[in-house]
């Protein structure tokens, strides 16, 4: 018994951690999903136990009246038994259909109440565009100078509704931050909308939930829910052009960036580098991960990534640039200083 229970408990322990978990909701919609999930689990668990119990009872029960019968099918039940049995079977079928219908109604009702937040005033709109294999993120604003462009990271203020406008540049992806909401497909040339709202601050990991090619598994993002002040501070900082490198090492790093393949795809606002097909690096140093949640954003990881991206994430669209060894240190210093 212990040999069985212990591994089971260890399996369940994987449910903790809570940075990416359906049953640890941080928003109202995820709460509804979790509620529905727990209800299904308990109801269907009880039914499963009942069915197994009845089956075991039927298997082990002592048969009355037919002990003397040979094994051939010669036993004819009395009309009374026949009636009783058909009553039981009909009743069980009706009950099954009723329970399934009830679950469908619950599921649809949950989906309906999830599809919009009650209060959508004071909301912010975020455009999320899927790419193989990273997320383009843009905060929409009527005032163009107040837009924020970033990648693989969404900051949201706690308690404020956030509209996610989801689309894709290449294939179908799916936006899934289980602590906040269900999955929403990102479809090329079509905008899918969903509202999310975080109830308490935290870092929630999201993951592409629709197979989108070789590096689908390494297409993650972080949603960072923080207080209103922290969010405004972050947004204001993201709106600034990139910091001008102060010391000679970082200045050289900037030149390395501008004189290599990097500049063809990446944008750093405030420099001539204005590539639009790769993630925006204007405030790269402030992000918590590189390569769409593949690695934590540290100088060492970044070094591995820029020198040999096809080793870390084979098949991704980052070019293996011809970097000279003496150029790498300045480049890393410069990129990490872009806060």
């Amino acid at each position: 018994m212990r040999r069985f229970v212990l591994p089971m408990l260890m399996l369940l322990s994987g449910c903790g951690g809570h940075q990416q978990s359906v049953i640890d909701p941080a928003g109202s919609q995820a709460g509804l999903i979790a509620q529905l999930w727990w209800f299904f689990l308990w109801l269907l668990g009880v039914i499963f136990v009942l069915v197994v119990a009845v089956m075991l009872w039927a298997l082990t029960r002592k048969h009355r009246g037919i002990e003397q019968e040979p094994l051939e099918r010669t036993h004819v039940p009395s009309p009374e038994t026949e009636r009783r049995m058909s009553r039981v079977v009909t009743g069980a079928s009706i009950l099954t259909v009723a329970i399934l219908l009830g679950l469908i109604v619950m599921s649809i009702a949950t989906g309906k109440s999830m599809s919009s937040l009650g209060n959508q005033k004071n909301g912010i709109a975020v455009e999320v565009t899927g790419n193989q294999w990273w997320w383009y993120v843009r905060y929409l604003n009527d005032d163009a100078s107040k837009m924020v462009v970033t990648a693989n990271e969404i900051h949201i203020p706690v308690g404020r509704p956030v509209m996610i406008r989801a689309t894709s540049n290449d294939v179908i992806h799916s936006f899934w931050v289980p602590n906040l909401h269900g999955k929403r497909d990102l479809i090329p040339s079509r905008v899918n909308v969903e509202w999310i709202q975080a109830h308490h601050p935290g870092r929630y990991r999201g993951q592409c939930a629709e197979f989108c090619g070789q590096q689908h598994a390494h297409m993650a993002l972080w949603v960072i829910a923080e207080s209103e002040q922290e969010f405004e501070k972050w947004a204001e900082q993201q709106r600034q052009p990139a910091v001008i490198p102060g010391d000679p090492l970082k200045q050289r790093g900037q030149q390395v960036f501008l004189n290599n393949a990097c500049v063809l795809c990446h944008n750093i606002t405030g420099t001539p580098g204005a590539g639009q097909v790769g993630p925006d690096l204007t405030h790269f140093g402030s992000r918590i991960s590189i390569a769409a949640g593949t690695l934590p954003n540290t100088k060492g990881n970044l070094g591995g990534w820029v020198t040999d991206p096809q080793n870390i994430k084979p098949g991704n669209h980052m070019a293996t640039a011809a970097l000279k060894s003496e150029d790498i240190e300045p480049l890393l210093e410069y990129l990490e200083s872009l806060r």
Partner: protein
Amino acid sequence: MRAIALVSFCALSFISCQRESRQVRPEPARVALYGDAARQSDLQPGGVLPQRQVSNPFHGAAYHINEGGRLFNWYNCSGCHANGAGGIGPPLIKQQWIYGGEPANVFDTIVKGRPNGMPSWGGRIPEYQIWQIVAFVQSLNQKQPQSTITPRQDTIEQSPENIKNKVQGETR
């Protein structure tokens, strides 16, 4: 008899292996090196030197042709050459090329640039990506094996036949 049929059927399934072979991690030499690949003139002091044979390492490789197609848009080649039919820049689906249509010529055109508008990309695009673009560009004027060209393109009107038929009416 049945054994032969079985073996040949199994062998058939290997046909496409070569087509889909993809080496995503370029060899070190492919990352950095730029050569003087093609001569611009047949006039040479002291007699004609043999032309160095330069072949595209990605010739006939469907994956690399496809990658070249992606880069063709990413690096904005399509900004001037459109999807091959030309616009600001010359069309790439013609058989006659101003600066030569051999892989080495196309490579040089991309690296060095050409007068009147073609930018010089040398030093920016890694060599292996230039070869990918060369492979793609050559698929536009049917210099790649038919089997390596995707039957369905991501953009409209990229089938060589389509564009050719359209352009022929205008250019000839």
